């Protein structure tokens, strides 16, 4: 008999974490906010004695349908990590020293308010910058706080993510239009790998493919999605525009375009057509490395399979010095083929809440976050340098922060209030750190003590999404207002509570942010009241949503009509789809800005800078997603970190052979800006001549290899996905006593099996 056979039923149930009265394990509903904002999987938290002991995806949430990704599955380690901030802190040593003393919330918030008031009275409200990184739930509240305080300088991590894609859409169509995956017969996925960035969408794509939907994938890498493609266009990083123009060439040349739509609803087609004439597939092949025949086949498949949808990604194409133009060239294909605002094509759907479109309701989010007009405020950070951004985006462009802090041009910046600030998000990250040390005052609000928070004067502990209430909606016409599943750790508080408390202490004259100027209104109640105001047009109330902690279907979801442009036109200056942009035309005297979606090679590339390419012959592509990480957010968790324990660069076997590099060797990646040492991960994931390196590693920060002004002149986005580097071998893995095979294998981010 085995001892275990005698293990009592109760013990077995406890060990297996079976919920029930007898085990004292309760399943509570919440929402994952480790990545943001298009996933937000519903969570089932197994809670015993007030502590989470296990996590699963919520079955009833139609978005994740009971599933989770590797990051969400590590929620327990994320919530209880030892780096979590537990109390407000005041800096006691020099900036960067990490010396802090715990203080009370009253002392901390009063210190913040005293500093903001002082800086405002001395230098104006605009000298204070408000910033939000991840998560995004508090963005509208922080933006309103900034505006009511009097500062135009509200900026976010969207200065490097998603916004360039939205700008490209707006320049062509005046609005965004999402891929209607469920009804498309052909999908053109342009550099997205939802398997690692948005797993609910990946499942939707696979289901569509099971129903016979054709798939074209544009991606420099052999991603899991590319392996499903009918046609994989494996282009060189940063050449997307040339590929799109090559496809347009075929579509126009072979008369596969929608003549009726173009004639009735487009502006600038003649100029576009003559520009595109210069990009026959053979020329496109020369630039992109994609065989001309594949370009032809893809153009024909996309143009002749109706309806066809183009699925862009949040950032990669925009992460290029010609990023917006490249995506404009790609998005022009939607209108060219008559797939704009049709079922199964790219469908216009109004934003509901937090950048989620098509959830079936509208809100007053925009009115809430923009209580004042830009014209009534001093110019935002980045407004002069990135005028197209300023025209299209209601935020400051954070990429211009270090320059303005260091030069004081056009005015001095003196204080920073940041929620989730990570200096490694910025190109030339060391310069960003150097710049913020010139500020008089920094308050950082974060979940964890981070390398950036060490530079703050006051550090405030935020709680995670499972410890607070948060409202999220989903394209499946579903909405959830979560309730705290566990009490906040230590003295941590919800980010929005901190915003409302600050608004109160700043005595802002704003009934939505400061409903009880004389006291007596709890921040959590103020939050709900503000949410009710924002959600008024949706017909839903917080009281109603609170009754459904796991979420509920949106009642009477709005249905957008097809081809609304027939009645309303396009919200562009000409009222038409713009092959030639009227907005860009205004700024076309600036280098890198043209009305047509012109192609320019990445500033640092074999074509764009041949001299540099002699010493730095490899293309460096940074930040492509790995499945277990999302930026820096799950590095510190042993479960996810064990899957890729060391910083490693993906190198094609052909390059590795040429450079005498073996799997697991220590290598140096360098550019004229800097160098980092990482392990070699030799894999066919990438193509020869291209090195892929993940970002945000404290011990090997790849953003040190970029210049701070390596930016797209239209969006201000950094050219993260295409620059030049060299790779040198530093040390062999063999003979260094580091041959513990299991660990080295795990470096690959998948225990690789050699063919």
């Amino acid at each position, binding site marked *: 008999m*085995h*001892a275990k056979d005698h293990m009592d039923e109760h013990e077995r149930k406890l060990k297996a974490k*079976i919920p029930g009265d007898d085990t004292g394990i309760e399943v509570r509903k919440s929402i994952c906010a480790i990545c943001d904002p298009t996933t937000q999987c519903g969570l089932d938290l197994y809670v015993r004695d007030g502590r989470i002991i*296990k996590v699963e995806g919520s079955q009833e949430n139609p978005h994740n349908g009971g599933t989770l990704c590797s990051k969400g*599955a590590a929620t327990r380690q994320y919530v209880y990590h030892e780096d979590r901030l537990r109390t407000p802190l005041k800096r006691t040593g020099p900036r960067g020293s990490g010396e802090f003393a715990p203080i009370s919330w009253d002392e901390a918030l009063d210190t913040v308010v005293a500093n903001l008031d002082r800086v405002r009275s001395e230098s104006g409200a605009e000298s204070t910058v408000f910033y939000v990184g991840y998560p995004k739930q508090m963005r509208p509240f922080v933006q309103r706080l900034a505006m009511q305080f009097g500062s135009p300088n509200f900026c976010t991590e969207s200065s490097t993510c998603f916004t360039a894609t939205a700008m490209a859409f707006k320049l062509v169509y005046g609005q965004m239009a999402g891929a209607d995956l469920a009804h498309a017969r052909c999908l053109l996925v342009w550099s997205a790998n939802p398997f690692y960035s948005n797993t609910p969408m990946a499942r939707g794509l696979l289901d569509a493919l099971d129903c016979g939907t054709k798939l074209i994938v544009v991606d420099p890498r052999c991603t*899991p999605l590319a392996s499903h493609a009918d046609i994989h266009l494996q282009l060189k990083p940063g050449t997307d525009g040339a590929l799109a123009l090559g496809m347009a060439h075929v579509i126009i040349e072979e008369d596969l375009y929608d003549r009726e739509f173009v004639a009735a609803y487009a502006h600038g087609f003649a100029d576009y057509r003559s520009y595109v004439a210069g990009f026959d597939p053979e020329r496109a092949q020369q630039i992109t490395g994609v065989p001309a025949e594949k370009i032809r086949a893809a153009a024909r498949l996309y143009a002749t399979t109706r309806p066809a949808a183009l699925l862009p990604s949040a950032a990669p194409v925009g992460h290029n010095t010609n990023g917006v133009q490249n995506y404009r060239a790609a998005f022009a294909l939607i209108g060219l083929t008559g797939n704009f605002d049709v079922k199964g094509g790219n469908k216009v759907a109004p934003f509901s809440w937090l950048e989620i479109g098509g959830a079936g309701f509208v809100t007053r989010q925009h009115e809430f976050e923009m209580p004042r007009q830009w014209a009534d405020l001093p110019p935002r950070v980045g407004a002069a340098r990135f005028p197209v951004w300023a025209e299209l985006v209601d935020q400051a462009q954070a990429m211009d922060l270090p320059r303005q802090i260091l030069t004081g041009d056009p005015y001095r910046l003196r204080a920073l209030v940041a929620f989730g600030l990570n200096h490694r998000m910025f190109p030339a990250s060391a310069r960003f750190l150097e710049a913020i040390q010139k500020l008089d005052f920094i308050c950082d609000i974060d979940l964890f003590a981070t390398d950036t928070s060490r530079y703050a004067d006051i550090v405030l502990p935020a709680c995670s999404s499972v410890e607070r209430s948060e409202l999220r909606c989903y394209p499946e016409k579903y909405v959830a207002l979560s309730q705290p599943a566990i009490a906040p750790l230590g003295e941590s508080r919800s980010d929005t509570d901190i915003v409302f408390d600050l608004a109160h202490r700043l005595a802002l004259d704003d009934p939505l942010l400061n409903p009880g100027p004389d006291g007596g209104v709890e921040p959590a109640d103020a939050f709900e009241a503000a949410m009710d105001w924002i959600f008024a047009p949706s017909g839903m109330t917080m009281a109603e949503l609170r009754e459904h902690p796991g979420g509920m279907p949106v009642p009477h979801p709005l249905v957008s009509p097809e081809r609304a442009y027939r009645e309303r036109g396009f919200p562009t200056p000409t009222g038409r789809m713009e092959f030639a942009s009227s907005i860009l035309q205004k700024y076309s005297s600036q280098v890198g800005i043209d009305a047509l979606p012109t192609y320019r090679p990445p500033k640092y590339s074999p074509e764009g800078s041949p001299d540099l390419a002699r010493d730095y012959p490899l293309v460096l592509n940074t930040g492509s997603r790995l499945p277990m990480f999302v930026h820096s957010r799950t590095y510190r968790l042993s*479960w996810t970190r064990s899957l890729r324990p060391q910083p490693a660069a993906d190198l094609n076997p052909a390059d590795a052979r040429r450079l005498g590099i073996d799997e697991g060797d220590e290598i140096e990646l360098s550019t004229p800006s800097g160098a980092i040492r990482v392990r070699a991960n030799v894999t*066919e994931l990438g193509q020869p001549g291209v090195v892929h390196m993940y970002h945000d590693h404290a011990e090997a920060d790849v953003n040190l290899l970029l210049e701070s002004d390596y930016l797209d002149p239209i969006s201000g986005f950094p050219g993260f996905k295409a620059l030049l580097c060299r790779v040198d071998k530093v040390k062999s893995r063999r003979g260094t006593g580091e041959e513990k095979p299991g660990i080295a294998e*795990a470096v690959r981010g998948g225990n690789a099996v050699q063919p």
Partner: protein
Amino acid sequence: MSHAFYLDVDRCSGCFACTVACMDQNDLEVRDEPTAWRQVFAVESGAYPEAHLRYVSLACMHCEDAPCLLACPTGAVHREAGAQVVRVEADLCIGCHSCSIACPFGVPRFGADGKMQKCDLCDERLKYGLEPACVRACPTRALRQGSPNELGLSVGRKAAKRLTGET
């Protein structure tokens, strides 16, 4: 009734959700050694521009005629009468690694105590109508579990559609 894990290799993307869900369910301490009970392997073939990458998630198969069970000298690895799960009893394990030699899938793991550990099929969860943690998490529904004959039918249905061009 026998049991099988089934993996739709076309749908597995190497995302590791199964691996981490298993760590969470079983409170695994995974630090410097690859001791996760469920492993994900990347299989590469061919070279640019014809390279192919596939992913396979593997854990204990709970084989009907389990070689580890025969190899174990102390009976630590055992199967209860009529049960599906191949279990390991840590108290009886002497850390001889015979099971590792016998296992065709390289499943046995050895923690800091030197004792063998591996997947227990989440059999207690199955008893209460809950799927194994790895299966529940799998975002693409590549990983499934159940009776091999039932799983075979669901694969067959998909193949039949493909054969008739009705995909």
